[in-house]
């Protein structure tokens, strides 16, 4: 039942009917409709309640400016809150619902607040709920529930969003006459052009305004121009795409609604696509938004922008009313009167505050039968609560800015208003430029450009069709020329230019009583901010427009004050006794219209949230049923549970295999850096705390790196491959940082040192073979290296082959057992691993993961940088003075002499043995001397590592304890989160094989 649909006309496709529901009511529209036009066609007048007073609200505009028609679309995971019905393309099966009302917009319980409206002035919440502060949480919960717009989906978003990065010579934003002319001019020159428009169709004002361009109609010119652009190979056309952010270096963000307008989306296609555009030049052709007028009860459903009324009539063939009054301070809305008349809507009056305006358009309206032009007059109030039923018209005394004479009632169900036009300067302002107030035209215009952008057409105050086209063509040509293209001769368009009578600026229509007593004159419909609120704010001392915004909520919300801001600023100016442009604008921030989180996230979620790095043996670990642990970006095997085993059992089994037999682990994730050049050893002397120049070729050494602050930064074993070459290893997580750190010193501080650093982390697969039987296993796969204990001693390396693959074998140990680390080219990593496994079968070789590695090293008191250290720990704190050279300089050395680094009572690295012996302390547990001491209990340290040692059959922990090195044998207490207190004895951090006999075999 499209009761308000005109029998013919419009750009809709009448042979493609679409069904949709609104608040459960079945409705019908056509392809080419927006949800707003379809709702109007179905006679829906009230579709929302206002934010604060729950007043009934209807559709006001026809685009991004719409403050009221915010609807919840779709269901379940697909639902989207606060969608502007004016920008939602209708699709079959669309489900829409009102948001800020219960049970519905026609009858809304929340509307009781309207009765207390007088008690809810600007700043009401600040003033009322300030005290007592601790109750704010409670207040907030109810206030938020009472306000609230739509609701977020509770389910994960089932749709896909993606991002794309593009570069272009000329980005044209807005595809009205100016934008199309700009794109044509730039495109013809061969420049790479992107033309975007937020609507489903290009054309801007040509979609609802009849025009003549050259010898053709506006519609024909539009069709031909878009077809010509589509033919150009370097031109990209993006309808349904909003340029929402203009950032530095001409970087702009666009969001394309790819399948939002399709019923049920489209398989395989993203719902939306975020375009990240680097444009060499930008042409802003974003047009202008009509300004409403501020008068009493101007928020009643049925009060609409005149341009929106024309749009619904001409583009969508919808009659927004049956009996209309037009209220305008300028000529453009006179066309609306003609449009309505032509569509069969009775236009009973045009009310105009100007005295006897003269122009061809005004004369044309005066000639129409039945239209009374009431000049020198204003609409100052509106009748009707749920919908306009009439208006109050009175004379206007411009000089005194008061009403004059008697007020009369005119019955109508539609009031089309126009207070002039606000150029859409949002992107210009976002680019860093400042919009300037033009006193003559009464609007903000683009100021001096800060980036490579220019404005053309309505957004530059060029409101006529010919001036828009010509300005667009010039801007497009200039932009192309600026990027090195030759756009040819300057183009001008032939289009009729109609003389217009000057507008009369009218920021607020006087009321019959004082503003604060009169019915509400709304400035910002979305936030229910009235003229009285603004005046109150100024009276209470809020003079800066930014303060007024925050006090009254003017310009907040999803529409960011696209309708109300300029009127609001002028009203504030008047209250301050200033010129209208004096308070300036609030900051225009991205996004121009709201953007979904989905589009911002793109594909960077789930498995693509962060890179997952895998070693060459990863498929083997997976096949073996390993549980994985994230270490940096790497996936490392954590433990390999066998059938029926829990983690604890698996780790105990793996630990005992390493201590008593042989075990194997994937150590490929360790950072590896090839350090090569005549000054390699001298460089390492400066990077590590210990000395490297004396290390013999073929030998390995453990090294510690400090930051400039003297704190432990990284560690690892490095080997001297040759006089001028080292194979350095770093921690898994520290690899990239260490390489960057060394490059920084090499390139910026010590460029005279001759050496090169090359990351070879990914080149080598590293297989650790650990345990008393490791040599036996290795013998079976390695024939060209003498593995004899004396000839291949601990802390040395050999080159040879393992399983026939060229290998570097290091005899080092992070477990305390006899151990070898086999490095082979990663392409053969899994093959060699499998060969070692096969060789180890007879010895019961057991793969083990990071958890067992941690237990084994903790038994030996070996630190893990980043676990036992936290950036506040020096080598001395760790009891590792032995590795700090006294004879040479190195990074961090001078900081070690700082007073704070040598004071008594620093936290020092110790071991802890718990009582009872099977109680494993949680890592991070705080340690105290007396858990029953008065609060705050002095804390003396914390547990950094803690495990159950199957080998020692005791819980062991590593900890940092104040003055710990001197407290051996003392007892500390560990209060747990569950209230229990565990006692622990401070011991040496080396729990197992203090003499190091086990690895020296």
């Amino acid at each position, binding site marked *: 039942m499209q009761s308000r649909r005109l029998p013919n006309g419009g750009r809709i496709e009448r042979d493609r009917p679409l069904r949709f529901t609104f608040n459960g009511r079945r409705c019908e529209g056509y392809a080419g409709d927006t949800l707003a036009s379809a709702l109007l066609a179905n006679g829906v007048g009230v579709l929302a309640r206002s934010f604060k007073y729950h007043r009934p609200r209807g559709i006001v505009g026809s685009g991004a400016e719409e403050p009221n028609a915010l609807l919840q679309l779709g269901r379940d995971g697909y639902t989207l809150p606060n969608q502007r019905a004016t920008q939602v393309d209708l699709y079959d099966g669309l489900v829409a619902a009102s948001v800020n009302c219960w049970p519905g917009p026609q009858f809304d319980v929340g509307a009781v607040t309207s009765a207390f409206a007088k008690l809810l002035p600007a700043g009401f919440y600040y003033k009322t709920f300030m005290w007592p502060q601790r109750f704010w949480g409670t207040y907030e919960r109810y206030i938020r529930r009472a306000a609230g717009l739509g609701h977020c989906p509770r389910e994960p978003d089932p749709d896909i969003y*993606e*991002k*794309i*990065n*593009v*570069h272009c010579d000329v980005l044209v934003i807005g595809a009205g006459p100016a934008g199309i002319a700009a794109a044509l001019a730039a495109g013809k020159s061969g420049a*790479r052009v992107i033309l975007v428009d937020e609507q489903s169709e290009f054309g801007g004002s040509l979609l609802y305004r009849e025009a003549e361009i050259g010898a053709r109609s506006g519609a024909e010119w539009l069709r031909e121009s878009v077809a010509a652009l589509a033919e150009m190979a370097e031109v990209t056309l993006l309808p349904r795409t909003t340029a929402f952010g203009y950032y530095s270096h001409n970087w702009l963000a666009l969001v394309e609604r790819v399948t939002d307008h399709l019923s049920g989306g489209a398989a*395989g296609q993203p719902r939306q696509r975020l375009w*990240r555009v*680097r444009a060499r030049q930008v042409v802003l052709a974003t047009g202008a938004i009509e300004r409403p007028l501020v008068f009493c009860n101007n928020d009643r459903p049925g009060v609409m922008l005149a341009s929106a009324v024309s749009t619904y009539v001409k583009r969508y063939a919808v009659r927004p009313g049956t009996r209309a009054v037009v209220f305008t301070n300028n000529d453009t809305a006179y066309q609306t009167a003609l449009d309505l008349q032509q569509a069969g809507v009775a236009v009973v009056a045009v009310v105009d505050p100007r005295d006897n305006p003269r122009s061809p358009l005004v004369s044309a309206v005066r000639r129409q039968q039945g239209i009374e032009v009431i000049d020198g007059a204003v609409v100052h109030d509106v009748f009707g609560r749920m919908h306009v039923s009439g208006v109050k018209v009175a004379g206007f005394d411009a000089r005194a800015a008061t009403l004059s004479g008697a007020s009369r009632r005119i019955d109508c169900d539609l009031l089309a208003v126009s207070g002039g036009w606000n150029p859409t300067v949002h992107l210009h302002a976002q680019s860093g430029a400042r919009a300037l107030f033009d006193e003559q035209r009464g609007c903000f215009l683009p100021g001096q450009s800060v980036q490579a952008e220019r404005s053309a057409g309505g957004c530059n105050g060029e409101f006529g069709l010919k001036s828009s086209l010509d300005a667009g063509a010039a801007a497009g040509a200039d932009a192309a020329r600026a990027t090195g293209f030759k756009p040819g001769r300057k183009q001008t368009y032939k289009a009729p230019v109609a003389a217009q009578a000057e507008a009369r600026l009218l920021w607020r229509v006087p009321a019959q009583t004082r503003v604060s007593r009169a019915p509400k004159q709304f400035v910002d419909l979305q936030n229910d901010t009235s003229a009285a609120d603004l005046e109150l704010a100024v009276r209470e001392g809020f003079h800066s427009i930014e303060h007024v915004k925050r006090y009254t909520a003017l310009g907040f919300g999803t529409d960011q004050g696209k309708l109300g801001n300029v009127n609001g600023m002028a009203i504030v100016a008047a209250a301050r006794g200033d010129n209208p442009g004096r308070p300036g604008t609030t900051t225009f921030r991205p996004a121009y219209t709201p953007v979904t989180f989905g589009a911002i996230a793109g*594909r*960077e979620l789930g*498995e*693509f949230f*962060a*890179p*997952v*790095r*895998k*070693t*060459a043996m*990863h*498929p083997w670990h997976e096949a073996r049923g390993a549980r994985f642990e994230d270490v940096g970006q*790497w996936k490392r095997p954590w433990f390999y549970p066998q059938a029926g085993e829990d983690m604890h059992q698996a780790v105990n089994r793996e630990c005992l295999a390493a201590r008593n037999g042989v075990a194997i682990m994937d150590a490929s994730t360790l950072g590896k850096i*090839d350090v*090569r*050049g*005549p000054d390699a050893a001298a460089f390492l002397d400066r990077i590590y705390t210990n000395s490297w120049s004396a290390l013999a070729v073929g030998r390995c050494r453990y090294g510690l790196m400090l930051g400039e602050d003297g704190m432990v930064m990284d560690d690892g074993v490095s080997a001297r491959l040759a006089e001028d070459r080292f194979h350095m290893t770093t921690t898994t997580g520290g690899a990239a940082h260490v390489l960057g750190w060394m490059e920084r010193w090499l390139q910026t501080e010590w460029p005279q040192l*001759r050496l*090169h650093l*090359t990351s*070879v*982390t*990914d*080149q*080598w*697969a590293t297989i650790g073979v650990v345990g008393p039987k490791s040599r036996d296993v290795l013998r079976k796969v390695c024939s060209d290296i003498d593995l004899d204990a004396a000839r291949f001693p601990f802390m040395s390396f050999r080159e040879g082959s393992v*399983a*026939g*693959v*060229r290998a570097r074998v290091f005899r080092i140990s992070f477990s305390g057992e006899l151990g070898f680390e086999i490095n082979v*080219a*990663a*392409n*053969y*990593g*899994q*093959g*060699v691993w499998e*060969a070692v496994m096969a060789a180890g079968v007879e010895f019961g070789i057991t793969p083990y993961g990071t958890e067992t590695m941690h237990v084994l090293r903790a038994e030996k008191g070996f630190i893990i940088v980043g676990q036992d250290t936290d950036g506040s720990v020096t080598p001395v704190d760790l009891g590792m003075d032995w590795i700090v050279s006294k004879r040479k300089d190195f990074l961090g050395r001078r900081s070690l002499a700082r007073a704070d680094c040598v004071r008594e009572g620093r936290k020092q690295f110790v071991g802890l043995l718990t009582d009872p012996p099977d109680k494993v302390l949680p890592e991070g547990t705080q340690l105290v001397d007396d858990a029953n001491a008065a609060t705050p209990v002095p804390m003396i340290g914390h547990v950094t590592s803690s495990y159950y040692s199957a080998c020692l059959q005791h819980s062991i922990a590593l900890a940092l304890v104040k003055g710990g090195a001197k407290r051996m044998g003392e007892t500390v207490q560990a209060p747990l989160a569950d209230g229990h207190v565990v006692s622990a004895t401070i011991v040496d951090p080396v729990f197992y094989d203090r003499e190091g006999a086990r690895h020296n075999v």
Partner: protein
Amino acid sequence: MSEIELRTPLVAVPGLPYRGRDIEIVEVASQGHVNLRGAARNAVFKDAVQATAGVSLPLAANTASGTQPPCALWLGPDEWLLRLPGEAQAATCVDALDAALAGEFFAASDISSAQTVLRLSGAHARRVLSKGCTLDLHPGVFGAGRCAQTNMAQATVILLPLADAAGGIEVVVRRSFADYLARWLLDASR
């Protein structure tokens, strides 16, 4: 010679090679990769590279001496990537350079196992890459003869445009990131 099976980084990624509409993704595995460091003005160094690998080192930033191995890609004022037809050639090349340049200040590292190559071809190749890369990949700007080090999604890569008419591009990626990147590209090619 080794009995051990060579496993390329992407051998286990389901969906590779991928042939979609206007897009093909394949792993170009087992090529030789050598990271080369040395002074461009050192004639001994340059001549040895020319003699050993058969390529002359490009000196202009972000250029490549060719699009197919053997070729050299400029990575920095004193750093190149040598691409050779197979990993055996890389090992030979490194050994030969070490021998020829004994006493010279340079470094050649065989990194054939450290990285792999994904070749994207077809009319949509550059569009797919643009989803994860902020560089201008327009063929007029980034054509054959150029190369670039950049980020693709969250992996660091080297891009090498091919000389084919469809504007294919090869992506050199570190081994440990290859699985992530391949899955990402497959997703982006849907």
